[in-house]
């Protein structure tokens, strides 16, 4: 399930809904991305997330389908916010549930890694010097590239 929204989300309620009435789930992994107050050593007053409505939803759904094809998932969820956010606010929730925990951890990390390099979101940070667009980071490309090749070990 994917959702793109301006408003905040309730992590506990989202995760409870994801696993409810599915006692085959043994492990649930969740990642929450938050607005940091520092970026490259500079204090951030606020952040604005721009996105590409329509393509964002398509791209998130595609990434989620890719995870479901690679791991035996019982459920998954991506909720991503846009608009203006203060430091400490939640930006994104990614969660995956599976019979075993390794699949939950790997697929959750896959989702956030791919999302960060493929989903059309752009951050603008506000500092004391004004607003500036955040540049993409090489670490994020490297994190995403790990998942490019079909994984050699395909054991259950």
């Amino acid at each position, binding site marked *: 399930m994917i959702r793109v929204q301006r408003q905040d989300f309730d992590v506990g309620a989202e995760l409870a809904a994801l696993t409810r009435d599915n006692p085959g789930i043994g492990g649930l992994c969740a990642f929450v991305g938050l607005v940091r107050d520092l970026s490259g050593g500079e204090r951030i007053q606020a952040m604005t997330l721009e996105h590409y409505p329509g393509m964002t939803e398509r791209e998130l759904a595609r990434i989620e389908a890719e995870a479901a094809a690679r791991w035996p998932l019982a459920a998954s969820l991506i909720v991503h916010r846009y608009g203006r956010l203060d430091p400490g606010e939640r930006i994104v929730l990614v969660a995956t549930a599976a019979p075993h925990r390794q699949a939950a951890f790997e697929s959750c990390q896959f989702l956030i890694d791919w*999302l960060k390099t493929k989903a059309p979101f752009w951050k603008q940070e506000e500092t004391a010097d004004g607003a500036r667009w955040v540049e993409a980071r090489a670490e994020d490309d490297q994190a995403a590239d790990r998942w490019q090749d079909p994984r050699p070990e395909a054991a259950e």
Partner: protein
Amino acid sequence: MKVLYFAWLRTRAGLSEAEVSPPPGVTDVAGLIEWLKGQGEGHAAALGEPRLVRVAVNQVHVGPDHPLKPGDEVAFFPPVTGGGAAGGGR
């Protein structure tokens, strides 16, 4: 054909959306970019750093040789930066 700009490409272009009608010789993304650069300062400024320009056609990521047809929605944007915390940190 609809052209969209996002993030700092939008800021540089001074517009977020434009309806354009490229000539028949423009058949792919690379051709469209070259043609747009001659269609005003905004387009030229937005597309001036091709290394930092990513393209989606009809909301799907594509490369420069992706073919175009009338009615396509072509979006130009910088590398994406959503998702919260960056990847480093071990």
